[in-house]
């Protein structure tokens, strides 16, 4: 099992204690200026109702722990292959459990916790939407894979030949999997390199990150998503 201890040693040189219950991570780490909360998943978890509830509880516990004191940052570790696919999970209403998790994340933001997501491994679709993708700042670590669906499955569903998709993937960031494409579209704030000082980078992200959703603006500036901000503005300003 991948308990991410090598990652935590790099992030938290001043110490950490992160427990791994199944695929769910919960604990604290100290990047050099005090403890921050750590919540996340490992082993490319397929997020089901159980995991969604465990993540939601961990977020609520972080909020409750800091009641009456300065809210500490929460580091989300995202490593998910997406949502669990099962009839039982659908009958339970997995989307509602994801919505609950998203609400807990939003509560943490409102209560003043800075939310920093680190993608270590995979970040795919539904499992990412309700959790890591709601962070104030989102970082891809080296080797991180970010996608909605792989190109072969997309070719099957859209009925566009794989060769055509592969060709377009080289020029268009909007559907090709990859952390760099998400960076160009503003969906990932930073890509950390292996040689970077991750502890220092995490400290400065926590200090600098605001709570406004800047992704559409970043996507415009970086040229990967030219319409998201402009069209929303048109709607806001329409006569």
């Amino acid at each position, binding site marked *: 099992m991948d308990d991410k201890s090598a990652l935590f040693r790099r992030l938290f040189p001043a110490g950490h204690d992160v427990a791994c219950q199944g695929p769910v991570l919960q604990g604290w780490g100290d990047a050099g200026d005090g403890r921050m909360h750590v919540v996340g998943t490992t082993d490319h978890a397929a997020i089901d*109702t*159980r995991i969604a*509830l465990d993540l*939601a*509880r961990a977020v*609520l516990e972080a909020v*409750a722990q800091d009641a009456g004191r300065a809210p500490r940052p929460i580091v989300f570790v995202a490593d998910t292959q997406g*949502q669990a*696919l*099962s*009839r*039982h999970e*659908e*009958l*339970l*209403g*997995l*989307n*509602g459990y*994801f*919505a*609950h998790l*998203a*609400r*807990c994340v*939003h*509560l943490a933001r409102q209560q003043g916790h800075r939310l920093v997501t680190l993608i270590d491994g995979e970040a795919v*679709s*539904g499992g990412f*939407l*309700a959790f890591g*993708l709601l962070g104030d700042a989102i970082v891809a670590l080296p080797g991180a894979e970010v*996608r*909605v*669906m792989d190109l072969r499955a997309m070719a099957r569903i*859209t009925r*566009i030949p794989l060769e*055509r998709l592969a060709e*377009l993937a080289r020029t268009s960031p*909007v*559907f*090709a*999997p990859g952390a760099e494409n*998400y960076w160009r*579209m*503003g*969906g990932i704030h930073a890509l950390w390199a292996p040689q970077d000082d991750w502890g220092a980078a995490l400290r400065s992200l926590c200090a600098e990150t605001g709570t406004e*959703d800047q*992704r*559409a603006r970043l996507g415009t500036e970086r040229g990967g*998503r030219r319409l*998201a*901000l402009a*069209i*929303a*503005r*048109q*709607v*806001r300003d*329409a006569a």
Partner: protein
Amino acid sequence: MTRPRSYREATARRRVAGLLDAGTFTEWVGPGARATSPHLAALGAPVSFDDGVVVGEGRLAGERVVVIAQEGLFNGGAVGEVHGAKIRGAFERACAEPPRAVVFCIDSGGVRLHEANAGLLAISEIMRAQFAAQSAGIPVWALVGGACGAFGGMGIVARLCDAVVMSEEGRLGLSGPEVIETVKGVEEFDARDRALVWRVTGGKIRRTLGEATHLVEDDLTAFREAVAALLSSRQGPVPFTLETLQAAQAGLEGRAARDAAVRDGQVLWDRLGLDDAALMETAQFNRRLQELS
């Protein structure tokens, strides 16, 4: 009595016209603006002048509302960059000029795969913008009665709404039955078994579980009346505190434990003594549920 007009069969524009007071709708960035998807065009796929979503404001029972209506007939109501930006813009506008409520006619399979990354980010941005509107005291109500239902990221968005009005024909979930069958096999979920699909995802089982707050007939007027009733109740957004979310957590834990092995809504109906739920008229079903609560 007016002739029933099917909500399911209506286009997004007809839904908006049928929901609002006559002649009160103003569309923002409508088809005249030609805001089409460059990503669909690059693939040689058909585009739509509204990119599959209608946004604007109008009056319903005299009260000002912002309306968002997805067009299920265009790419399954799926969310791309432009489509998503229109929805996000509508929520931002609602924050700037608060209406009494946002009425969100969801009819979507989720992310538009042709522009998958942009669609995923757009849904995340919609979630953030919707939270902002709710935090500003504006309730958001989902109507789910179209042929595409509310799935994928839009299934999550639907459950972030303060009320969910469904018809029996509406469907709500995360992964569609076809996706589950393709990946996990027909034994896991037979997507061609329509009765089973509705017993797992349909309006009646979602109402039974409390996820849909209202179940109405497949009739535009019935949807309009449900929204009018919500307006006259004067209720704001569902409160959002550590205590309310801890209570919600306990409720969801309880349901997951109680229904740990259930794979068919019929099991839940049998347990409640509603064994003929699938056959009941909507009014009768609502009455029986009311008696049980």
